[in-house]
């Protein structure tokens, strides 16, 4: 019973950290989804708001964790799996609900202090930004492709060793359901590997093509930060891609060499741990748009970035029909989000959902 509990704690605790510390990870030109002059980021009342938000969410997160741990000793396995999902979703919703009063308070402060009128609002764009190397080449994904090829080769070399019934579905507790051996079942995992490879290449392209965001007060520094930010997440994608392909290859190999299954728990555990630790470190060291990377350059007080708060609904959802960009940097959080006014955004999201859902639906 301790394995799944430990696994869920390992997943949940880093999540609490990322959600709770989000206000510290954003760009310094934003506070709770409201754009601010960079020079005001460290104002005492803003600092207090960020701390209050983080402490509240950590306490709530820990309470969730403790109650989950206590419940997991008393309830049946199936219910606990569902409970874990519910707890994660509830926690995320809770984080968003807690964010809202902070967001409205920031809006109010901004309105009453009228920063806009005293400084000229401009936007800076680097005409040579697209000449820079922004992400690592997609050729790096050859390693992932190689893993898929090895998986396929091993499958067909050892075709006869594979038993007639294949364990196709494993739940959170290691309960296995079986299916007949066939081409479809044998190709299921390589197919998933391929779909993921395509998805990762696509995500790498998105990182390359998203809107450049250069801060007016400090164009040179924010540009360098932005490039480092993109490159690090691109490298992360390449490594993550390789790791997941390896994990899937291992799963396929357990069909051929059933004695491998005794390592399953430790392998899944270390993969999850490694991936979450990597993500957490990257998010905290780099910050949104590279905002936590220290580069020395002086900042100008005379200008502020163009105020585009009107396009950020609730400070988190970008809706701007005049902007041809499909992907933009998130405001409150680390990573990218869509311009929801662009029809392609919806098509892309539905496409990604289909890639994830089709294998699930095929199986059930």
């Amino acid at each position, binding site marked *: 019973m301790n394995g799944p509990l430990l696994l869920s704690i390992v997943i949940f605790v880093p999540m609490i950290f990322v959600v709770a510390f989000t206000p510290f990870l954003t760009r310094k030109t934003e506070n709770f989804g409201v754009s601010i002059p960079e020079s005001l980021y460290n104002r005492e009342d803003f600092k207090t708001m960020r701390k209050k938000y983080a402490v509240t969410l950590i306490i709530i997160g820990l309470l969730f964790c403790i109650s989950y741990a206590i419940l997991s000793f008393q309830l049946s396995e199936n219910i606990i799996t569902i409970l874990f999902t519910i707890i994660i979703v509830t926690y995320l919703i809770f984080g968003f609900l807690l964010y809202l009063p902070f967001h409205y308070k920031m809006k109010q402060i901004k309105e009453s202090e009228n920063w806009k009128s005293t400084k000229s609002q401009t936007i800076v*764009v680097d005409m040579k930004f*697209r000449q820079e190397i922004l992400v690592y080449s997609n050729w790096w994904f050859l390693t992932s492709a190689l893993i898929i090829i090895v998986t396929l080769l091993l499958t067909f070399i050892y075709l006869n060793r594979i038993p007639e019934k294949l364990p196709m579905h494993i739940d959170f507790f290691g309960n296995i359901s079986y299916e007949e051996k066939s081409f479809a079942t044998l190709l299921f995992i390589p197919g998933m590997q391929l779909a993921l490879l395509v998805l990762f290449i696509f995500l790498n392209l998105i990182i390359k093509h998203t809107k450049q965001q250069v801060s007016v007060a400090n164009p040179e520094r924010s540009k360098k930060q932005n490039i480092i930010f993109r490159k690090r997440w691109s490298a992360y994608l390449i490594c993550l891609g390789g790791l997941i392909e390896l994990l899937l290859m291992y799963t396929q190999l357990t069909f051929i060499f059933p004695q491998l299954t005794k390592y399953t728990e430790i392998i899944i555990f270390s993969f999850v741990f490694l991936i979450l630790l990597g993500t957490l470190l990257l998010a905290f060291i780099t910050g949104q748009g590279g905002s936590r990377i220290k580069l020395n350059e002086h900042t100008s007080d005379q200008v502020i970035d163009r105020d585009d708060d009107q396009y950020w609904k609730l400070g988190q959802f970008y809706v701007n029909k005049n902007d041809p960009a499909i992907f933009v940097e998130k405001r409150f959080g680390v990573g990218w989000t869509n311009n929801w006014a662009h029809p392609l955004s919806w098509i892309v999201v539905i496409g990604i959902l289909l890639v994830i859902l089709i294998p699930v639906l095929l199986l059930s």
Partner: protein
Amino acid sequence: MYIQLDFESDIPIYEQLKNEIIIGIAKQKLLPGERLPSVRALASDIGINLHTVNKAYQQLKQEGFLLIHRQKGVVVNPEGAPKADDDYEKKLRETLRPLIADTICRGMRKETYLKLCNDIFQEIEGE
């Protein structure tokens, strides 16, 4: 090369964009034959309509600052902008006349005006 656009200015964005690109070429920060971002890329970086960028690029093409190739995309004219000829001088004279009249009406001295011009020349030519 950074360009700066002011969204609250009375000067339309496409015109500001044009001016910034011309200044970039004059300052030799954009060299002859150099590629500029595509209409789509620049519009999404600035966060404005495609037409606005397209209008600026088309006018710059008309005036001979840029070439727009189907394959190579948008490049700074490798041969440079057309040299100033008599026609150009005549047009420039027309543009400057009301401006100089304006400064005279406001009582600005000729020396101050010429010094201003000189400063701008120095700033752009970088000497």
